[in-house]
């Protein structure tokens, strides 16, 4: 594709993102539900880490930093739209094929929509979650530099998640139900991503495996900003690398899937 062609796709995907964002804003009840879930989760973990801190004085990292770590990782996870299900439904209903008649490739149109949806979710959940984390801890343990980086890196991290969600959705071309693949991905995020516990508390051998996975790049990378351990530029570079890998994967899986559909019937 020429640079002009890429620019054209990006422009159209941005318009789709804007409409998807407006669409998401029109669904207030779901946003409130997610914010409440997020707040409950933070409350439970704030109690849990207070108990741990009381039982093991001098534990590192401190409880308030861990709570902010969880606030960041949960913010990323809860903001990611579950696009694999939508893609699977579109494929089952036959709608996906009909969207191919538009002058923008389906994966990039879907990515635009996903990112638009994501930005709104991140905005709403960020305000609710970070506000609640502040209420629970009474502090913001991020320095000015980390604070400036946490939002753009968080959005980039969730965008990597959206790209992998697309690739998972496209496995529906072969699998009648792509949820098992999603569950593996989700458990990978929870465990190897360090959703609830920073990787620095993991056994050495597991941490050594986890840090090379996209899961750690998506969650732990941004979370480390709250722990005062992360280097924002390195976190950003890792995320960009995984974003590029994810885009390549999406293009590959989609092309193969379409060929499979072409031979086996629409």
């Amino acid at each position, binding site marked *: 594709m020429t640079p002009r062609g890429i620019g*054209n796709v990006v*422009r*159209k995907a941005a*318009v*789709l993102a804007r*409409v998807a964002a*407006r*669409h998401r804003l*029109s*669904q207030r009840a779901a946003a409130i539900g997610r914010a409440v879930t997020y707040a409950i989760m933070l409350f439970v973990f704030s109690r849990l880490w207070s108990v741990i801190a009381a039982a093991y004085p001098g534990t590192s990292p401190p409880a308030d930093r861990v709570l902010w770590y969880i606030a960041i990782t949960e913010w990323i996870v809860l903001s990611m739209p579950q696009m694999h299900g939508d893609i699977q439904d579109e494929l089952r*209903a*036959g*709608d996906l*094929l*009909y969207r*191919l*008649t*538009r*002058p*923008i*490739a389906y994966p990039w149109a879907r990515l635009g929509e996903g990112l638009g949806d994501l930005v709104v979710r991140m905005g709403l959940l960020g305000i609710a979650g970070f506000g609640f984390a502040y209420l629970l801890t009474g502090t913001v343990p991020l320095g000015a530099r980390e604070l400036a980086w946490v939002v753009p890196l968080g959005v980039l991290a969730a965008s990597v998640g959206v790209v992998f969600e697309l690739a998972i959705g496209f496995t529906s071309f072969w699998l009648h139900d792509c949820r098992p693949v999603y569950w593996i991905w989700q458990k990978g995020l929870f465990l190897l991503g360090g959703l609830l516990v920073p990787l620095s508390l993991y056994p050495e051998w597991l941490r050594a495996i986890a840090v090379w996975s996209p899961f750690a790049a998506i969650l732990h990378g941004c979370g480390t900003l709250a722990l005062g351990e992360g280097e924002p530029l390195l976190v950003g570079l890792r995320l960009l690398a995984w974003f590029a890998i994810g885009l390549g994967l999406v293009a590959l899986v989609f092309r193969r899937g379409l060929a499979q559909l*072409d*031979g*086996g*019937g*629409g």
Partner: protein
Amino acid sequence: MTHAIEIDELSKTFTVRERPQGRFAALRSLWHAPKREVIAVDRISLRIEAGERVAFVGPNGAGKSTTIKMLSGILHPTSGRVRVAGHVPWQERQQLAYRIGTVFGQRSQLWQHLPASDTFDLLAAIYDQDPATYRARRGVLVDAFEIGAHLHRPVRQLSLGQRMRCEIVASLLHAPEIVFLDEPTIGLDVSARATIRDLVREQAERHGRTVLLTSHDTGDMERVCARVIVIHGGRILLDETIDALRRGYIRRKLVTLRTVEPTIELALAGVRVVKRAPHRTDLEVDVDITPIDAVVQAALRGGQLNDLTVEDPPMDDVVQAIYARAEADARLRECAS
């Protein structure tokens, strides 16, 4: 005249996996699943001129959708040659997208929680429409389809008829030369159906658009199109004008006599009374046995008439007769082989 659509010897064969029967079938299918070839479209050839309105009809599984998917570049054919608006669809899908419009009655391109105007703006951007041209065209279409009052309400709050009018406007915003309509009136009430048909025909006539309509509703076919292609078992059974179809396939006429006397008796070969009421008699006439003028003369001799109407049977019956004939021919071929 130029051809909007050219199809030569187009075929599509799908390979479908069959699940083996018996115990542990699911397990065995993991390493060996028998495959079967299904011919969805079988060497069809046709030409559609620019500005023609053509109905593409056939029973479920006839190959209509597969053909439309190949024409719009969604599927690759197994063999054959196709050009749509001068493009090879599966090789130039993106370029072709600017020149075709699609309306699928059972699928929506409108964002349900947003007003239709938002989707229109989005489509204008996706189809690279110049803002001034887009605004002017949108104004004309909104007036023609009378959707001005519904434009700023969330789509989910619209009735099916209102939504379908918005769907058609959405597909015409980039002024496509060719429009594929798949069941555009499905689920609509009688009045909404009539409105949609009239609007589609009127828009196509005014702008010289080529229309390829697939529908199970023969009313759509009669009101919108001038030509009909009947497909069955992946092959074209018939390709004629609607008028020729009527002339060629309709051997029966429905005659209604309204008489001064309570009843009238007609004893003619090929004439059957289908309904009788005081001062009214409905007849079915086989015109191959008794011509209509003979029936009229007999009716005039038999009593005093207040009114007389002669109608063709519904188009549904005509299409059913075509399918039935095709199935009988296929059975004969099977027996012969």
